[in-house]
C-alpha cells in the first residue's frame, strides 16, 4: 500500500523528490526534461542546479565580467525554459543548453560592444592558489592568467568562443563544434587561429618573455 502511494504517477514533483530521498533515485536529464515538458515546472530547477556552474563559467570566461556572466546565465535558462517544449531529444540536453549559452554570450557581447573599452580596463582575476607552489610561482601564474584574460578579450567573438570552450572549459573539439554549430574542421581552424593570436598578443606584451627562434 505504502509502495503504491510512493510510485503513484500523480504525485508530481513532490513525489519525485520523495522518491529521490527514499530510493536515492537520480533522474536522468531526459527524465527531468520529460517532467518539465509534462508541465512539472519545478523540475526545471534540477536542470538549473546541474548546469548553472558550467554555463556561468563559460559566460564568465567569455564575457570577462561577473555581472555580464550572471545576466547571460539567466538569459540562457529563460530561453531554455521557453523553448523546452520544442526540444526533441535528438541531442543531449547539455549540448542543447550550451548552444543556447553560446548564442546568449555572443548576443551579450554584441550588445555590450559599446562598453568594450570599459570592460578592457576592468580585467579582474580571482587569485588561484593550489597550496603546492611557492608564493612567487603563484604570483607569476596569476600574472600570466591576468595577461591571458586580457588577451582573450582581444579575440574576435568566434575565435574567443572556440578557445574558451576547448582550452579553458575543457570541452572536446566535437562538443565545441556542436555548441558553435559549425563543422569539426571549422572549430579546429578557429582554435588554432585563436591560439596564434593569443600568442602574438602575449609576445607584444612587454612583460612577457617570448622564446624567439
Amino acid at each position, binding site marked *: 500500500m505504502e509502495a503504491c502511494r510512493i510510485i503513484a504517477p500523480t504525485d508530481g514533483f513532490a513525489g519525485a523528490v520523495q522518491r529521490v530521498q527514499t530510493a536515492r533515485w537520480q533522474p536522468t536529464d531526459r527524465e527531468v526534461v520529460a517532467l518539465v515538458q509534462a508541465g512539472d515546472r519545478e523540475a526545471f530547477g534540477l536542470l538549473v542546479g546541474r548546469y*548553472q*556552474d558550467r554555463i556561468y563559467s563559460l559566460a564568465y*570566461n567569455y564575457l570577462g565580467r561577473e555581472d555580464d556572466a550572471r545576466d547571460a546565465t539567466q538569459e540562457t535558462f529563460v530561453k531554455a525554459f521557453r523553448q523546452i517544449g520544442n526540444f526533441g531529444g535528438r541531442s543531449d540536453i547539455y549540448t542543447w543548453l550550451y548552444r543556447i549559452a553560446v548564442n546568449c554570450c555572443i548576443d551579450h557581447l554584441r550588445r555590450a560592444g559599446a562598453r568594450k573599452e570599459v570592460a578592457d580596463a576592468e580585467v579582474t582575476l580571482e587569485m588561484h592558489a593550489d597550496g603546492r607552489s611557492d608564493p612567487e610561482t603563484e604570483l607569476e601564474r596569476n600574472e600570466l592568467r591576468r595577461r591571458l584574460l586580457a588577451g582573450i578579450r582581444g579575440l574576435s567573438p568566434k575565435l574567443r568562443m572556440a578557445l574558451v570552450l576547448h*582550452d579553458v572549459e575543457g570541452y572536446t573539439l566535437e562538443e565545441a563544434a556542436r555548441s558553435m554549430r559549425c563543422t569539426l574542421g571549422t572549430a579546429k581552424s578557429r582554435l588554432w587561429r585563436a591560439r596564434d593570436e593569443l600568442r602574438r598578443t602575449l609576445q607584444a606584451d612587454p612583460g612577457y618573455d617570448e622564446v*624567439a627562434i
Partner: protein
Amino acid sequence: MKECRRLRGRWGRALRVEGLDADRHAQEHLAGCESCRQWWQQEREIRRALASLGGNRAPAGLEQAVISRVWSERLRTRLQVVRLRLAAVGTAAVAATLAAVLYFGGVGQPPADNLDINRMLQAHVEASAGGVTGDSGLGAVGEVEGLF
C-alpha cells in the same frame, strides 16, 4: 631553424599538450634544442593557465535568481496572452455594439433620401389615379372601386 619553426607550428596545434610527451621525434628534438625546450615550457604553462581559468562556480544565489526570473518571465508571458485575449474580446464587443447601433438605430429614423422617394412615389400614384378618373386625389380611386 626551419625544423624548429615547423615543430612549434605542429605543437601549437596539438589539442592536448600531454600528447607530445609520447611523441618520440618531438622528444628527440627537445633534448637537443634549448630554445624549443623553453618555448615548449612556455606553451605548456599557457595551456595550464588557460585550463585553470575554467571551472568557475556560479555565485551564491544565482540558482534562485535564475528560477525567479524564469517564473516572472512565464507570468509576464501569460499576462500578455490574457491581455491579448481581453483586447480581442473587447474589440469584438465594441464592433458588435457599433453594428447593433447602426442597424437598429436606422429602422426608427429613415434617412432623408427615403423621404424623397416616398414623396416621389406618392406623386406618381396621384398622377396615375388622376389619369384614369379624370380627377385627382384618393377619393376618385374610391369611386372607381365603388363601381364593382
